């Protein structure tokens, strides 16, 4: 394989020092951009998390003043009004999905892992990469600005169903919803730049010997995520633009009075939205697939099955979106087709789960903090995946659609899955990213408190959903049939508060380790993939004079006939070993 791009990349900046601004702010180095995305995501996670705390307060003790919030909600003396409540859950979901999980999983770890793990010196288009981050940051500022405009921020749900979202008088929000649209259009541009970069880099810039089927699974997952981003985001952009035009220019895409069609919004939104769900979970699947072999000291079970199942998800994710619309008024015959595809998309996830179990089987398992988080990812993802089968069955969905069962499901996938995946990735790659180790005891304390309080906060939501509690309601005790369930809401709120507090351990660990953690060696986990052959943290352009050459697949642990229990991809296997790939 020839490497014209890698060769030119060596030329730029190898011989001159970059100033502060070019190093830390307008950097074109993929590792710095990765850190920037990570900090953006963690900052937004704090805001999104605090919004969730307010939501939980209201649901446990409806219409009672929030302690300490009297100065903000002066007119109601601290009680959250219903329109503010709608804003809270709309923006909690919007921030968590678009500004926490996507920037951390795809933005930070896509940028950090792809070049380092395929043996490239940087992304294919470093300046486009920089532009991608700064476009994303502008989108973040626009999104946060919505909190400060008259009428408040968007309050039509993160799904922003038209016509509720399309006419300002229906919600009372004006510029909030407009900024929501504009911010997502800008953010989609940022993600498009990233996606093009990831795809180009993976296709063109792999080190000698790094064939596609020798790529680490996390690179596969990010590559497939990038393909989904590239194809899904234009649909969101179009839909958000149409919504904005309906709101500001007098078009009637979604307004029946002018010949528009409300369901068009749902078709467009979910055609983007369901691939989006996999955009949120695929990188976490890749991270678990990366971390389990390292700490089980064992090759991943069924590497090819893992790749093919991700490709199957990539394809199937386009033809399942109608399951969000079973009771929307969509032709019920179409629902049958979507039931079948939705049932079938559970199969690749099942295959992945069984292969993760296969990886653990016969291993020599080390319970480090990244491993614990990766194991929690597997367990919680299983619950989130299985609860999805209820919704796939159209008759059952009639009952549980728009209830807390859906809220439970999405949080088991997106928190239990994506966020535990993100924590696993942060604990695992922190030494490479920042050159220092995180504190293990504090990491374990964070893990166990998070794992337990997470389940207290989210598992009972299944019960509320089965009991019939609707999502997005302001006050559950207004309804007679929900009164006997209210104590679950109180329990969930205590769980959520504890979950929020448990994150303080993470914040302390993160910042303390950043400045005072033990210096990390190049390969602290005795792992095989290429990033661990570079110094911690890797210098600009990652490796010295020569980029590594790859001799075998990424998960050669405990190879018979070797004294060490891991064989880096840069070292040929002994001739007797039954190497695959």
């Amino acid at each position, binding site marked *: 394989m020839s490497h014209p791009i890698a060769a030119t990349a060596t030329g730029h900046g190898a011989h001159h020092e970059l100033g502060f601004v070019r190093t830390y702010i307008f950097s074109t180095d993929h590792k710095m951009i990765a850190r920037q995305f990570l900090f953006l995501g963690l900052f937004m996670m704090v805001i999104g998390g605090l919004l969730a705390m307010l939501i939980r307060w209201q649901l446990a003790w409806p219409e009672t003043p929030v302690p300490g919030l009297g100065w903000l909600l002066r007119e109601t003396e601290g009680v959250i009004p219903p329109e503010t409540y709608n804003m809270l859950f709309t923006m909690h979901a919007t921030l968590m999905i678009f500004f926490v999980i996507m920037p951390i999983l795809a933005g930070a770890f896509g940028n950090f892992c792809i070049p380092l793990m395929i043996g490239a010196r940087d992304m294919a288009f470093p300046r486009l990469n920089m532009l991608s981050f700064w476009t994303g940051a502008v989108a973040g500022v626009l999104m946060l600005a919505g909190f400060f405009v008259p009428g408040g921020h968007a309050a039509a749900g993160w799904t922003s*169903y038209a016509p509720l979202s399309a006419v300002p008088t229906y919600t009372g929000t004006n510029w909030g919803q407009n900024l929501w649209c504009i911010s997502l259009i800008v953010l989609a541009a940022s993600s498009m730049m990233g996606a093009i970069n990831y795809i180009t880099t993976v296709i063109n810039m792999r080190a000698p010997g790094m064939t596609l089927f020798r790529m680490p699974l996390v690179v596969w997952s990010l590559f497939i995520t990038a393909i989904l981003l590239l194809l899904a985001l234009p649909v969101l952009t179009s839909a958000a633009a149409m919504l904005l035009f309906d709101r500001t220019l007098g078009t009637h895409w979604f307004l029946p009075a002018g010949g528009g069609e409300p369901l068009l919004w749902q078709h467009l939104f979910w055609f983007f939205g369901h691939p989006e769900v996999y955009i949120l979970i695929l990188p976490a699947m890749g991270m678990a697939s990366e971390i389990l072999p390292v700490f089980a000291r064992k090759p991943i079970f069924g590497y090819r099955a893992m790749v093919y199942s991700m490709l199957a998800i990539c394809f199937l994710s386009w033809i399942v979106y109608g399951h969000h619309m079973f009771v929307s008024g969509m032709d*019920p015959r179409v629902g049958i087709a979507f039931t079948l595809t939705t049932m079938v998309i559970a199969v690749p996830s099942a295959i992945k789960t069984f292969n993760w179990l296969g990886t653990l089987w016969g291993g020599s398992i080390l319970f480090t903090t990244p491993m614990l988080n990766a194991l929690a990812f597997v367990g919680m993802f299983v619950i989130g995946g299985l609860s999805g089968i209820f919704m796939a069955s159209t008759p059952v969905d009639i009952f549980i659609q728009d209830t807390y069962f859906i809220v439970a499901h999405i949080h088991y996938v997106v928190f239990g899955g994506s966020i535990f995946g993100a924590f696993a990735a942060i604990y695992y790659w922190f030494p490479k990213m920042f050159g220092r180790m995180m504190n293990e005891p504090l990491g374990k304390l964070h893990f166990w408190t998070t794992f337990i309080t997470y389940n207290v906060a989210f598992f009972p939501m299944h019960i509320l959903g089965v009991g019939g509690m609707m999502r997005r309601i302001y006050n559950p005790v207004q309804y007679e049939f929900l009164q006997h369930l209210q104590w679950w809401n109180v329990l969930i709120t205590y769980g959520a508060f504890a979950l929020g507090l448990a994150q303080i351990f993470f914040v302390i660990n993160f910042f303390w380790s950043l400045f005072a953690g033990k210096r990390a060696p190049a390969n602290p986990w005795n792992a095989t993939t290429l990033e661990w052959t570079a110094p911690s943290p890797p210098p600009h352009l990652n490796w010295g004079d020569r980029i590594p050459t790859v001799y075998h697949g990424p998960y050669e642990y405990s190879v018979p006939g070797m004294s060490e229990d891991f064989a880096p991809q840069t070292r040929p296997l002994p001739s007797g070993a039954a190497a695959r790939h």
Partner: protein
Amino acid sequence: MLSWWLPEDVSSYGKDIDFLFHLIYYITGATFVLVAAAMIAFLVLYRHKEGRRATYTHGNTTLEIVWTVVPTLILVVLTFLSVPTWARIKMQMPKTDLTVQVNAKQFNWIVTYPGPDGKFGTEDDKTFDNEIHVPVGKPVKLILKSQDVIHSLYMPNLRFKQDAVPGREIPAWFDATKPGKYEIPCAELCGFGHSGMRGWLFVHTPEDYQKWVKQQWP
């Protein structure tokens, strides 16, 4: 035991929905228990011990085929078990004597009865706010409309949910099996008054229903 929390079912097709719910509940519950037990067993059995090396294997094709084919079969069977119930509820309309229009608006259910002539748009139409009265054991047809945003008519005890979409008339039906008073929340976010947008379904015995009809259309 999630299923303990299901609201009481008082509809003719509710038991079919609840059957599927329970079936999926037991299948997924058993799957979860098996996966979790295997995972915990592996974590305990194969924890790191000095001197023992991990088994060196890259996978097993037979296992891959088994754990691809078995879930696929189960899920396809679940699909085909779901279809008849779905078709009965949403694709077929039983013969009904009573048709009621529900026109949703922020934040009310406006319920219109056609009156004795059985036709909408005539003088004997009668409109109620947030109240639907029906006889027990008789299928009732609903025509769902909306004046502004999307709402969703939800009757937990009847396992009924259908969105009302502006610009459309969506037909739906139910058949209540037990007299009583049941809540009708709105299940689709429809604005600041979404929570509390609620009506009541009154399921009457045949005699009581006749009495109610006589009162309304003397």
